[in-house]
């Protein structure tokens, strides 16, 4: 799988899982993972999942996805923009950055995860 394919499959899986049941995102993270959500940092899978679960249900509409190789072929940087809907409210623009790092052949975990709502 190319980096591009990995990124696309990852993003699809991530947002589907987030909307269905954030708890199920746990296998994507490990103890070295870090999340910065609207400026609030969480380190480690447990804290990250706790944060995501506390946010509640969000519906994502992914718009763009850009991919770059990181320091070597074992890591991929992904930048996503789109709209997120909170309950029945109007959608808000958001941006999210991930760095996936290989933990084995064709296996990745999320090392970095940065999320921001975008205002004019």
């Amino acid at each position, binding site marked *: 799988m190319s980096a591009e394919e990995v990124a696309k499959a990852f993003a699809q899986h991530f947002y589907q899982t987030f909307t269905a049941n954030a708890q199920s995102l746990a296998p994507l993270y490990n103890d070295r993972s870090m999340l910065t*959500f*609207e400026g609030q940092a969480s380190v480690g899978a447990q804290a990250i999942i706790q944060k995501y679960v*506390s*946010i*509640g249900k969000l519906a994502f509409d992914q718009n763009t996805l850009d991919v770059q190789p990181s320091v070597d072929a074992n890591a991929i940087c992904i930048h996503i923009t789109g*709209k997120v809907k*909170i*309950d029945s*409210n*109007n*959608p*808000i*623009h958001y941006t999210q950055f991930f760095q996936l790092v290989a933990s084995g052949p064709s296996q990745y975990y999320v090392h970095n995860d940065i999320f921001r*709502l975008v*205002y*004019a």
Partner: protein
Amino acid sequence: MAEVSRGSSADTDDLGDPDLKVILLGDSAVGKSKLVERYLMDEYSPRQLSTFALTLFRKNAVLEDGTRTTVDFWDTAGQERFTSMHPSYYYRAHACIMVFDVTRKATYKNLVQWYGELRQFCESIPCILVANKIDVDYNVTKKCFKFATQHNLPFFFVSAADGANVVQVFEEAIRLAIEHKRSGGDFVEDALTLLDS
């Protein structure tokens, strides 16, 4: 008190600056949107400014003395559930309607944070405190909610569901907003704006 006509609807094609800006604050799901919708019924033009992540309801109000005024009511897009409001939400607001849900104690406790954030951005604008969902149990109106007296805020029991007091709250907000604007507005904010420009 100024009588505000509810009979006129907004001109949907012209998004110039309004005369007044009234913002709604409070926890997620306390009924902010429901209150605005209840007040305006069908006589409004909702616009989504997606870049601001909010819904803006414009209302043409006619005052007792015949003067017409346009009011924008700003409602959030639910982001208060996990983040604080962006400064643009507070920018040049003339009045605030702060809402909590009488059936959920946490929404009352969180007023401290909301009020603190409001005062950080808008030092002196009038703020009305509103206890929503009294239709669930009308006995709640016998209770005393200290937050209002502590901060010297006008206080209303309302129900977005059955409409109790809703019109009164919004008319009071418009009246206070006009008063605030006439008295010179938020001096500190204006001074900061001048310094920035």
